[in-house]
């Protein structure tokens, strides 16, 4: 099983929409896919019509209850979801109680490795113990970056942090999201070279209203607007990421 995380220090950059769409595309390509909604806001769960409540979430995070018990089937073949729970707001504290606090997430997912080909983690924004767990559990971090100086700065912060923590070899794959070519600021940044320490994915996810519609349809874009620009962009992003991961696209 490969593990990727949609991660950014900054909020509102399109992590959840990307996580849900990539999970859908992965399952459609034949991979048994699990999406773990780690964000207590539970947007990914909402998009897939799964209630944000996990029975005994603390036991789950302490490893006293198998992860698989909380998994829900989505409406799409081969795509399962581990829904969020409000208790995840205190996830840092719960992980800190573990024997190896920075490796607890990796421990928790070990038993589901057999049952899935790809695990996608949808992470809350921040740089906390949860994030450190994520960094240690993944094959790659997919980092959405809005083409603005502030968003680029958080990418640099992330890379600095990884280097300082001895995690410099974690694969970081940034890509531009919510890009609006009508804005001169976005145009300028899209044309410039990003941080040389990370290999940018070439696909740019545009700012499109179809993506915002996900909350209305409660489904991945490809399920209700398959021919849209946004659906095509996610498909291109998936092909690129799948190619780097070595899984079927």
């Amino acid at each position, binding site marked *: 099983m490969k593990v990727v995380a949609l991660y950014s220090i900054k909020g509102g950059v399109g992590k959840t929409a990307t996580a849900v769409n990539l999970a859908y595309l992965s399952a459609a390509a*034949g991979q048994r896919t699990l999406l773990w909604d780690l964000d207590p806001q539970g947007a990914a769960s909402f998009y897939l019509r*799964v209630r944000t409540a996990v029975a005994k979430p603390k036991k789950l995070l302490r490893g006293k209850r198998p992860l698989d018990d909380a998994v*829900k*089937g989505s*409406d799409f073949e081969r795509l*399962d979801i581990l829904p969020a729970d409000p208790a995840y707001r205190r996830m840092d504290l719960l992980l800190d109680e573990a024997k190896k606090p920075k490796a607890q997430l990796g421990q928790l997912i070990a038993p589901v490795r057999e049952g899935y080909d790809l695990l996608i983690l949808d992470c809350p924004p921040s740089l906390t113990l949860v994030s450190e767990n994520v960094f240690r559990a993944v094959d790659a971090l997919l980092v959405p970056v809005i083409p603005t100086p502030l968003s680029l700065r958080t990418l640099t912060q992330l890379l600095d942090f990884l280097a300082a923590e001895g995690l410099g070899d974690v694969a970081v794959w940034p890509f531009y999201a919510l890009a609006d070519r009508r804005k001169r600021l976005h145009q300028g940044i899209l044309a410039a070279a990003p941080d040389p320490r990370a290999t940018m994915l070439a696909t740019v996810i545009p700012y499109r209203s179809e993506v915002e519609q996900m909350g209305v349809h409660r489904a991945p874009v490809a399920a209700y607007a398959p021919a849209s620009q946004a659906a095509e962009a996610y498909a291109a992003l998936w092909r690129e990421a799948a190619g780097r991961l070595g899984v079927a696209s």
Partner: protein
Amino acid sequence: MPGPDIHEIPAPFEPAALIDALGPGWALVEEPAGRRRYEFADSFDWRLHARGLRLARVAEGAKRHWELCSRDGAVIAAPALAEFPIGVDDLPPGALRDALADLLAPRVLLARAGLEARVRRWRLVDGDGKTVLRLAEEDGHAVATEGTPRLRVPLPRRLILEPLKGYDDSADAVAAQLERRFAARAVPRCECEAVCRVLGVAPGGYSSKIRVRLTPELPGAEAARRIHRQLLETLEANVAGTRAGLDPEFLHDLRVSVRRTRSALTQIRDVFPEARVRQFREAFGWLGEVTGPTRDLDVFLLQLPEYHDELPVDLQGDLEPFRGFLLDEHRREQAQLARRLAAPRFRGLMTEWRDFLDAEPDLEAAPDAALPVGELAGRRIWRAFRRVIRDGRAAVEAPAPEVLHELRKDCKKLRYLQEFFASLYPAERLDPLIKALKVLLDVLGEHQDLAVQAQHLEGFAERMAAEGRAPARTLLALGALVGSLRARQAASRAAFAARFDALDSEENRGAYRALFKPAADPAA
């Protein structure tokens, strides 16, 4: 993966009636209907069935996948690409292949029975618009995989509930309603058994083992006839697969039947007219001979990976020309064998032999034809055993290769006799004797196989050289193999004495004496 819940339903499924029964807040969304085809696969000798496994290739539209169900209900799914017959290497790498590889090889999977159904489908959706259960109604026929026209038998209508992970409650609720209001009946997940039953296919129906039921008072000629008839059935069952070259086990089982038949003709002696015995012995001798070359090549092809590993790493690649040579030879020999098994000489032998076995035995035609088989069997086994002991003791003194070869033949005759007449003796007394003999036979068999392989390898090397197909390094590799085969042969010769001593133990001899020695026989 949670397994689906399957129900037989007497009438077509009515979605509206189910929604009525479930109450408000639920909806059934109809999905496109289609056709589904299952092909239940197993080896010719039902190896999967014997382990409680069921394998189906499920086709829907252009999509095909494997479903392997184990006895405990676990399911392994994998994409299905290859066409029958399907060998282990044709299966997609992964859990499915891993589960079947050791069990199946070198046999191939064949389609043993089929099911074709029209499928109607629905999604059960809860108040949040979330799908919680998938339903599929199958209305179809069991379809035979052999015979023209293919036998088609209608099957009861089935409703398949596929629960989504984490929503098992909904599946349970629907299942309860189906049973209460729709007279549905839960049935096993894999319908393979039911399909085979209506088609008259018997899973596990083929075995190369001898399973003749005899009673001690049966006249010798009649007992021999029954044994031969079963051997003939096994032989005939393997003809089509051998001709088609589906997998090496068809020819192997065919040849074992031939060997057993020849052995039975000699060992169960004086029950048939002598002239007929001589005639059939010669005819089956011919059959053993003409099936030999293909089998030898099968053995080499199966051995190749082992040979490869046995060689020094730098010579391993040099076996490739040898592999090519074997494959060419095999193609030619197999074609000739297929022709021979279709030709009048072979067909005539089968007919004549069956006619002979089907005719009422003439109890006057041979000295022991009327002798009760209980007596006959003990006498023959006792005699064969004494011969093994006599020749074995000589072989311990001087274990020359040809002496061990002769001893192996003696042991095989004894083993076959024990198998032919097994039903006359209590299994708990006979089985340990067969086991002890098998231990000895294994080492003798290995010794002989290694000798034959070394000899054949030398022959192949000479022919490859003569045909200009042997690079020097390939000859070196073959030479190295012959050397290592001879070394292993010497080792198995050294292991022989200890194994024989176990057979020749006081205890073992006592057991044979008690079970087989005829009362009137003065010899001890």
